[in-house]
């Protein structure tokens, strides 16, 4: 019985149309980048029309830790001045 082989784990991101963001759809195993791209295409592009696929070795992804979430991420609407609605242009009807 031969020794078990561990293929590298890759995360797959796909873009459904030009201009759209790449979305994470899952992961696959492959020994190298070319096989990873082909495997990703064979697994995730069978039904959906895609324009682009990214594959990234899972261990290269740097992620925030869940326990840091409170410090890293503020609750959304708290800093009002970051949102467009806070800003009101001068009344455009005013004419000199």
């Amino acid at each position, binding site marked *: 019985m031969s020794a078990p082989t561990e293929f590298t784990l890759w995360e797959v991101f796909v873009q459904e149309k030009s201009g759209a963001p790449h979305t994470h759809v899952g992961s696959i195993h492959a020994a190298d980048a070319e096989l990873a791209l*082909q*495997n990703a295409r064979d697994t995730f592009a069978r039904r959906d029309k895609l324009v682009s696929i990214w594959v990234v070795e899972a261990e290269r992804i740097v992620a925030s830790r869940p326990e840091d979430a409170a410090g890293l991420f503020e609750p959304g609407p708290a800093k009002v001045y970051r949102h467009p609605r806070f800003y009101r242009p001068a009344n455009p009807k005013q004419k000199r």
Partner: protein
Amino acid sequence: MSAALVECLLRLGDDGLVLGHRLSEWIGFAPVLEEELALGNIALDNLDLAQAALGLAAELEARGRDADALAYFRDEAQFRNALLVEQPNVDFAWTIARQALFDAFALPNYRALEASAEPRLAAIAAKAAKETEYHARHARTWVLRLGDGTDQSRARMQAAFDELFPYLGELLEADATSRELAAAGLAPDPSALADEALATIAALMREATLVQPAPGAFRPRGGRSGRHSEHLGRMLAEMQVLARAHPGARW
């Protein structure tokens, strides 16, 4: 002219059907789960082509048959596939070598067929050409990994090419039918595809650190005129058994 065109479509369709069937034999047994999907996709593309080409052939011959009648109720001697595609899946390297050799012919063949004087054939070929680019890429990827992988994989990949390379010749030879088709602008002369096909294989084998087999006395021919190897009969026995057990039934 219609008769030659029907022959052309039978060759195209039968190549697709037999190759698609052979690839489908891997389902459930592929060496890696990811390859189940890859081989499955290539099989499906070939079966789609078969269905389209045989369907058009049936329509043009106007004998009341359809694609299924051609697929399931013809005997070996009436099949027009090349001998290469009926060779069995001895191992994964054989399947990859068979694919690489077939695609070396098929890709330029489909591209040339896009200019066929018969627009429906041109449309079938256009779709097949796009899909075959991917099949060829997949085969090439594995030839490189198996050829330049471990000693065992190189030995198997070399053995597969040694056995299957002689079958490429049949795909790249003209005959009376292909000359008639070329003269009518319906299909390319296969011998005109030879340079490109052979160059593709030579480059691929070199890059994979494999040795291209020298031509020998073994030059298998006959598939295009219905003289097949022992493999096709057994393959068709399995493929056709259920349909033939219920003639006239709808599924």
